[in-house]
């Protein structure tokens, strides 16, 4: 009887959080779904009736769709590759005995706490500016012509900025995983004559695989929707228009709500596919 009582109390305590999140998820999503089937142009007559699947077809057939998909994939892939490779190396290095480990850790983690608009602007102006940027000075010092980073190498520039922001996250999580590695196992393999590269390939990397998977999934979800970094650097020009940015432009700049909403639904589906994999891993861990 007491259990019955506490069960209903528990349900009551959960209710506000569940109701709020349900509302937050369903109301806007249903609205987006609705708009995606309408001819909705607020600046040109408002809601002009049903469009069927026209918006979905037009979104995919527009000349900016496939470039935006490849831009998104290049940015996500590039940032993932850089942060995972350097993250593993950094985590292994930071796990070694050294002086001032705590301070180095703080230095490495710091970029994660810088707000996206600040990091994008600092990189854009103080490093990548073709006249006054530090890179320009460095290039000139070595006798090379300064690069106009954000127009000539726009994707590379965005990848550099975003990688700088996310490397700390990858490093921190991988470091946590490295520290849970069984030291005796490594010692035993060393005594059996395993070379450093073998130890890395057969013991360390398999041990890290779960953490790496989690970093990949979480970062992918956040990277698919990076916005501020593009908003304040290139504004989507010079081939940096990602899927997120394309939808943003359709909705707020060209005010074609129907078309933008169809794009939004595509983005939701894409994010869900990745989220399913992440949920499986997190869910498994919950049982353990």
């Amino acid at each position, binding site marked *: 009887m007491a259990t019955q009582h506490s069960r209903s109390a528990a349900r009551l305590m959960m209710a506000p959080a569940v109701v709020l999140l349900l509302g937050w998820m369903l109301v806007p999503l249903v609205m987006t779904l609705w708009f995606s089937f309408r001819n909705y142009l607020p600046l040109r007559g408002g809601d002009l009736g049903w469009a069927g699947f026209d918006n979905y077809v037009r979104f995919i057939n527009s000349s900016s769709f496939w470039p935006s998909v490849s831009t998104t994939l290049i940015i996500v892939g590039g940032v993932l590759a850089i942060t995972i490779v350097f993250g593993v190396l950094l985590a292994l290095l930071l796990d070694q005995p050294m002086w001032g480990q705590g301070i180095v850790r703080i230095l490495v983690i710091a970029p*994660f*706490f810088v*707000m996206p608009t600040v990091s994008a602007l600092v990189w854009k102006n103080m490093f990548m500016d073709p006249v006054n940027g530090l890179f320009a000075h460095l290039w000139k010092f070595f006798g090379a012509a300064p690069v106009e980073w954000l127009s000539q190498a726009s994707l590379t520039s965005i990848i550099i900025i975003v990688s700088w922001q996310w490397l700390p996250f990858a490093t921190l999580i991988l470091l946590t995983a490295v520290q849970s590695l069984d030291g005796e196992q490594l010692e035993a393999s060393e005594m059996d004559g395993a070379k450093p590269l073998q130890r890395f390939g057969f013991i360390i990397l398999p041990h890290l695989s779960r953490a790496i998977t989690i970093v990949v999934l979480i970062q992918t979800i956040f990277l698919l929707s990076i916005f501020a970094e593009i908003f304040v650097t290139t504004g989507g020009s010079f081939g940096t228009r990602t899927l997120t940015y394309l939808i943003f432009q359709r909705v707020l700049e060209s005010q074609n709500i129907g078309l933008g909403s169809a794009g939004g639904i595509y*983005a939701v589906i894409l994010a869900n596919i990745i989220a399913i994999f992440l949920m499986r891993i997190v869910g498994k861990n919950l049982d353990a």
Partner: protein
Amino acid sequence: MARNVTTQRKIINTTAAWVIGLLIFFPILWTILTSFKTEATAIADPPVFLFFDWTLENYQVVNERSNYGRFLWNSIFIAGGSTILGLIVAIPAAWSMAFVPSRRTKDILLWMLSTKMLPAVGVLYPIYLIFIKFGLLDSVLGLTIVLMLINLPIIVWMLYTYFREIPGEILEAARMDGASLKSELLYVLTPMAVPGIASTLLLNFILAWNEAFWTLNLTAAKAAPLTAFIASYSSPEGLFYAKLSAASTMAIAPILILGWFSQKQLVRGLTFGAVK
């Protein structure tokens, strides 16, 4: 001799780690240094590192000219308000899921997490419409609510992983000793839960402070927090390196300091307990 080898390796490790660490930190260091230069020194060719006339002028100018205080206040209010509101909603939920789990607890937790994966841009226009309808556009209150909702799953999750570590036997023992639900909450659970709640508060304050999609899209002049204030420096006429640096330094300094305290919680909070 063995000791000698370790010392040598330790020196190599230390050097490598410090060089890389400083390299990664350099953009932040450079921003802080530039904030103390005059505009002329900031764009000097070749660049000046440490030996210049340090000045606080930029901080004064930013403070006076741009109502910096109001943006700062907006940031504090939005980040703090959304975190506290989130905690009020999340603490009972996480508490009941951790101590009175049912068959559906896991599904509910995973579903909550899945709402976090919803791409913001997909629901931008509906939120925009709702905000206009309720007069919440460019209001501190509206942004506080949105940020509370987007961080709620993380708050529930973090609290859940902390609460789950509190042994249930202690509660049973308290109940056996005749403690009422009220005293159970007040004297047994609360003291054990406070550290977890504090770390959750810290991490979510940081996440809300740095949020840069909704803050950029739902505010204009009135309710803009520091993220939006800094973004206004991207227009060409606002291109003053030293002033940009001073504004940036002020915007990131409080969070850098808070962040250093929350390194450990960061892993737990952002991997939803999947990496410990």
